[in-house]
């Protein structure tokens, strides 16, 4: 686990932040997931319900060492939190990262984004600027072309702020 974000990614996210949310590489689309029993807009669900809706009972393995999730430990502004996900994975026709999900456990709608990638992307990385309602875990979940699921998560604090020092 690394600390904060290196400058190159910050630059990238800064750019992406202006665009709202976009993929870092070509050949992908990014959307709020709607497949598999899409929920009506504005409906609240728990993160457990959301994951069940998307993945059924499929096991999600620990992706530490494969997935690099970059997100501030304490959000400087909960309304615009830069998140980036980088996956060390081949991107070949037989073995590639199909989807990257960004999930905020405590959000009213926790499944924030799904990026769909193809082998033509060349690398599996995505950046987004997300809104966090309150302190909680942010997860990156990776769905591989064989259907395997991996995740990493990190606590992000959304604080009322103030300082003592």
């Amino acid at each position, binding site marked *: 686990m*690394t*600390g*904060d*974000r*290196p*400058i190159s990614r*910050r*630059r990238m996210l*800064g*750019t992406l*932040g*202006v665009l709202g949310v976009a993929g870092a590489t070509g050949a992908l689309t990014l959307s709020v997931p709607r497949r598999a029993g899409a929920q009506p807009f504005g409906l609240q669900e728990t993160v457990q319900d959301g994951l069940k809706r998307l993945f059924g009972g499929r096991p999600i393995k620990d992706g530490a060492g494969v997935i690099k999730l970059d997100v*501030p*430990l*304490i*959000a*400087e*502004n909960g309304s615009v939190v830069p998140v980036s996900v980088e996956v060390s994975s081949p991107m070949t026709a037989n073995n590639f990262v199909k989807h990257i999900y960004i999930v905020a456990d405590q959000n009213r709608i926790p499944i924030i984004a799904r990026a769909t990638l193809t082998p033509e992307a060349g690398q599996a990385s995505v950046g987004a600027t997300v809104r966090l309602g309150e*302190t909680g875990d942010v997860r990156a979940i990776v769905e591989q072309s064989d259907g395997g699921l991996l995740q990493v998560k990190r*606590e992000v*604090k959304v*604080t*009322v*702020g*103030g*300082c*003592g*020092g």
Partner: protein
Amino acid sequence: MEVTRRDLLKLLAIAGGLGLGPRDLEAAEAPARLLEFAPLGNVTLLHMTDPHAALRPVFYREPDALLGVGAERGQPPYLTGEAALRAYGLRRGTPEAYAYTHLDFSQLAARYGRMGGYAHLATLVKRIRGERRGRTLLLDGGDTIQGSATALWTRGADMVRAMNELGVEVFTPHWEFIYGIDRVRELFGDRERGGLFAGDFVAHNVTELGFGDPIFRPYTIRAVGGVRVGVIGQAFPYTPVSHPRRFVPDLTFGIRDDHVQGLVNELRDGRKAEVVVLLSHNGIAVDLKLAARVSGLDVILGGHTHDALVEPIRVGRTLVVNSGSHGKFLSRLDLDVRGGRIADSRYRLIPVLSKALPEDSPMARLIHDIRAPHEARLSERLAVSESLLYRRGNFNGPFDEVILDALLGRADAQVAFSPGFRWGVTILPGQEISLEDVYSHTALTYANTWVREMSGGEIHRIMEDVADNLFHPDPYYRQGGDMVRLGGLTYVIDPERPMGQRITDVRVGGRPLDPARRYKATGWASLGEADGPPVWDVVAEHLRRVKRVRIDPRARVKVVSLARQRGPG
């Protein structure tokens, strides 16, 4: 082994049984001996931090409550009072006990006098520079231009003049930003331009929000005693959430230890630095974690949490120093650098005992010039205190109670909030409280008070949020400072529990806090906009009215710990 005069006297005392009378011991404890230092090697790093604009000597009581969580508990720096004395082999009643702990504070303050002050500090710095010609580097870890009326009124310029007179060579910021990024650029310059400050302002972790462009120089390299010393600046990582966002609207900060690692490598491999120092405003817990994650740092000179760390903590090959606050201390770290490695080191957290150090004339003149236009206003006597008043400590201190009483009284509110800052002078029993003293506890650029209704649930959530900033098990999630000070209510806290479960049994006016009920609340230093009168006016009015202040112990906060009850310790 070298035997200092103090050691010798101790040995004689032990060997001779009653060989030394109390008078001799008294002489042996003369504060001047603390200024003696047997020089070592070729590099002397002099570090001060968090002076909070204390131009003149102050009383400043170290905390009696400084709780660490988990593995930190009972380890330095989370040692106070007798435990700290035991850990460092010090005795009660000595100048060290006065400087490093809260014990017998009123009596020892009367005996040993005020500490710090730039004129006294300047004498000490000049003395060391004279002894170690060409081998010294003076670094200031920030929180320097905030904390006094004159700093506020000159928007930091008075302190930058004092820093220049003192000859501060390297600096990194935190509270400096409350004057706004434009003012910081005027005073300290940036990556391209210089400012009023004559030294090097370094801060690798302050970048432009959009494209990540660095605002300041990340590091500087100085030749000290023939050794190339690289100093990386680590500004306070959580500046944007700790103060109103409007002061740094387009900047982003962060700990960025991976970036520190990159700079260490660059300094060592590319720039041929023989010693690499991180001048840090992280706070000590973050410094210790960072030291374990970054390799190749020789020294971290840390500040922010005001810990007067009596001896450096070694983490791997890194020495972590933290140098207290308010000008009370000057850290001296002598290094023997040979072939790009530190062969030996010697350290002391030197107490700046003003009685033992005459004023430096040029600095004294500058301080006089700074203060002269404001002297009459600053010295207004508002009240006399019958109690020892201080702020520092994890929970409400007596000076906080004065502020809270003033806030509650003015607003006729049920609950009052005041930030758990770690700055502000100590007032001894019998001492007058001047307007200047009030500013020393309140001088910031968002001091307006507010009054509004809050639900019990909201009050509880804020308490939990701040407690998590203080007691989160992972130091990287801590912002520093102490628990928010609360007036009108009492509570129980268990620092070892997770967020949302630390604060229990909150009572307002003796009755349980009702999450659904609305309470009239007041406070100051809001991160949003507030339009009430500034808190220094509210506190000064209160003091003028009461004339005498007496704060008896209030059963405000009960600290419990499940871990402590169950554990062996």
